[in-house]
């Protein structure tokens, strides 16, 4: 079941929404989220919410008025 998530992502064409993917895999969105979290921890997927600049907005933004604008960015998940 876990592998199916990675496979589906590899085969997909263009962006997919979480809902579309869950329908395609016949998994509850919640379950899919759990599996994605697992792969993110394993380092196979990358979650933009946890990526460098998204959450902490720490040292990646020297002298920018920017951090507050970054919050508008939707969350996305990619293969690594």
């Amino acid at each position, binding site marked *: *079941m*876990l*592998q199916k998530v990675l496979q589906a*992502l*590899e*085969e*997909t*064409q*263009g*962006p*997919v*929404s*979480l*809902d579309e*993917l869950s329908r395609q895999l016949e998994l509850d969105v919640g*379950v899919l989220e759990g*599996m*994605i979290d*697992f792969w993110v921890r*394993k380092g196979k997927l*990358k979650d*933009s919410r946890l*990526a*460098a*600049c*998204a959450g902490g907005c720490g040292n*990646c*933004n*020297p*002298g*920018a*008025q*920017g*951090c*507050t*604008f*970054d*919050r*508008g*960015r*939707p*969350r*996305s*998940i*990619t*293969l*690594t």
Partner: protein
Amino acid sequence: MTSIGLTPSLRMTYASPIEAELTRLSEDLGHCPDLVARYPMRWLAIQLLEGDALLQAEVERLGGSVASEALAASRMRLETHYGEDLDVAMVDQRYRFVHDLAAQALTRPKTPSLTMSDRVDRIVTNRWLGIPIFLGLMWVVFKLTTDVAAPFVDWIDAVLTGPVSHWIISLLSITGLSGGWLESLLIDGVIAGVGGVLVFIPVLFSLYFALAILEDSGYMARSAFVMDRLMHRLGLHGKSFLPMIVGFGCSVPAIYATRTLENERDRILTGLLVPFMSCSARLPVYVLVAAIFFPTMAGLVIFGLYLTGILVAIGLGILLKHTLFGNELPTPFVIELPPYRLPTLRNIWQQMWERTAAFLQHAWTIILGTSMLIWLLLALPVSGEGGFAETDVDQSAFAAVSGVVTPVFAPLGFGSWETSGALLTGFVAKEVVVSTMIQVYNVPGEEEEEAVATTFGEDLLAIGGSFVSATSDALKAIPSIIGINLAAEEDEQAPDGLTGAIRQGFDASSGGHGALAALAFLVFVLLYTPCMVAVAAARQEFGSRWMWVSIIGQFVIAWLAALIVFQGGRFFL
């Protein structure tokens, strides 16, 4: 019933190699009383095989080498079956167990009921309707930012050039410093420059208001999704539009946001395209110039500019993808479309405030600095008779410096030292274009008819009164967003000093095609380097080489686009 059993009778069974090791490991660990006292043995064994670092440390501490060796041996034996992926196998088996359990305990509806969000999404992310809806909403946003904000812009302008300037002058005269260069610095430098930008705070405030609503309601994620799907169909793979959405606010975080792209080439490509998304700092320039040259259709012009930015980014992206950047494999990605919800006032207010504050901070540092520098350069005579701070601006050092680059802009219709100077300072930040223009077109002489002496209290009353009427004007403007015009067309005021000066300036440099030149100017502002900070960000993220590619590329594209607008327009008109 008097007693109930809470101890589960079912426990999940793993695949037999794992079960064998679980039994063995829990037996081995069971020899250590410290562990037995603390943990359920089977559970401990499961967690250890799954690779729990915390528990492993505990086992090493309490169970010593015997325990850790038992664990290592178990792991070793399982490696032949599962390689590195023992944890994947175990978690997967747990998911299967749970899936079976849920399948028995739960009957799902045959046709899953559509939530409100699903229904809206059918329309909003529809293959054909998605883009028009996105454009329609953008249109509303720019009508909002221009029409509703306009009365407040006038209000702040009136307050700054009226009472505030008077107060400063009076204050100076009390301290006996009036009339000199200090007055000039404060009035022509700081008030004209920084004030000229502060005037546009209401515009930014309404833009941030609109952005906050779009983000908080969940629409922004959809727009990125729809646009990315379009880009994908156009052959631009990768989640490039996600950073670009950020670019509507500010290019700098958008450049950093490319970090989330996996592929180095996608990162650089997106980093090159992001600056074409019109950032919020450019908006004041559009509003200022459009209000002068296109007063009746400022919203349309601004919308057109934003659209142009998107189209240039997409077009250039396709071009680069087929040349420099080869055909990379697509980077598939999943995007979370949060359920739609009513934006909360608290969130909206917080975002508007934070973003406006970020902008204001900018005003006090960069804009104040450049305004004072430009005042200095404008005050320094290089020819003519005038002394310091009395010189004719045409004969100032600033005119001389700007004059050097003027020929570059001549074919574009805005080859005057004033516009050249504004564009030069615009490399620092786009707000500075506005402050510079106001400073250089600040026609001296025609002293405003000596204001009737007013008291401080009267001034305050007048400020309050004009705010109320600005608010009512703004409210009247709201229906016009959807095409109803309630407010009777105000009789155009005779162009005041600044408007007249800017109009004359553009007319003179373009051989009478002032409006066309102004449009070309706006297109240029849209497309050339956003600001120094963005340049620094690009260098940090992509290296000096790409930074230069970006600066020069943007300049060339901006120049060509402005040329097409001006020369093309002149050809047709």
